[in-house]
């Protein structure tokens, strides 16, 4: 594992370098992108970013789980989860990285 972590600040810096906006406006735009994606997922459940991937909200039914500490059975309530499916382009790119055969 390379061990580095990229954060919102790194994304904002990249936007700042790439486009002629101020640092604070660059950061606001990064936040706006994530807020738009979040809003759309909450409203209609799917966001498709070509050559990157698709986020979709899935409904999970109730099932029985177990408290691993006590062994007690507990119901896991129905809930909505977010799944991300990477596009083939992104999958191929991740598998091409140097340092691997």
């Amino acid at each position: 594992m390379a061990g580095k972590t990229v954060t919102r600040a790194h994304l904002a810096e990249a936007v700042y370098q790439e486009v002629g906006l101020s640092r604070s406006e660059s950061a606001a735009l990064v936040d706006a992108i994530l807020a738009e994606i979040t809003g759309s997922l909450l409203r209609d459940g799917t966001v498709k970013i070509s050559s990157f991937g698709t986020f979709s909200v899935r409904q999970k039914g109730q099932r029985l789980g177990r408290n691993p500490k006590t062994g007690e059975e507990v119901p896991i309530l129905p809930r909505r989860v977010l799944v991300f499916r990477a596009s083939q382009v992104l999958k191929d790119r991740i598998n091409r990285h140097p340092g691997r055969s």
Partner: protein
Amino acid sequence: MTKSDLIRRLAEANRHLYIRDIEKIVATVFEEISAALARGDRVELRGFGAFSVRDRDARLGRNPRTGDEVRVPDKVVPYFKTGKELRLRLNMTE
């Protein structure tokens, strides 16, 4: 929503910006995330989620049509974990 819908919505909320700049900003964000994953780095976006990569060992698979065994080489796959805030918001009754 698609990437072009996203660009349109951002353009409506930021009328002082050129569309081509918004396109560039959106492209930059996804490019930075993709590049980080290609390097094997993690991308952590608080409140939204975290992208990372995981190793998968080589395995023997089977062609479901012919039943032939096929070697599936080891690979790296992208992984996304939903952030706490978004996970909670998905399950809020509105």
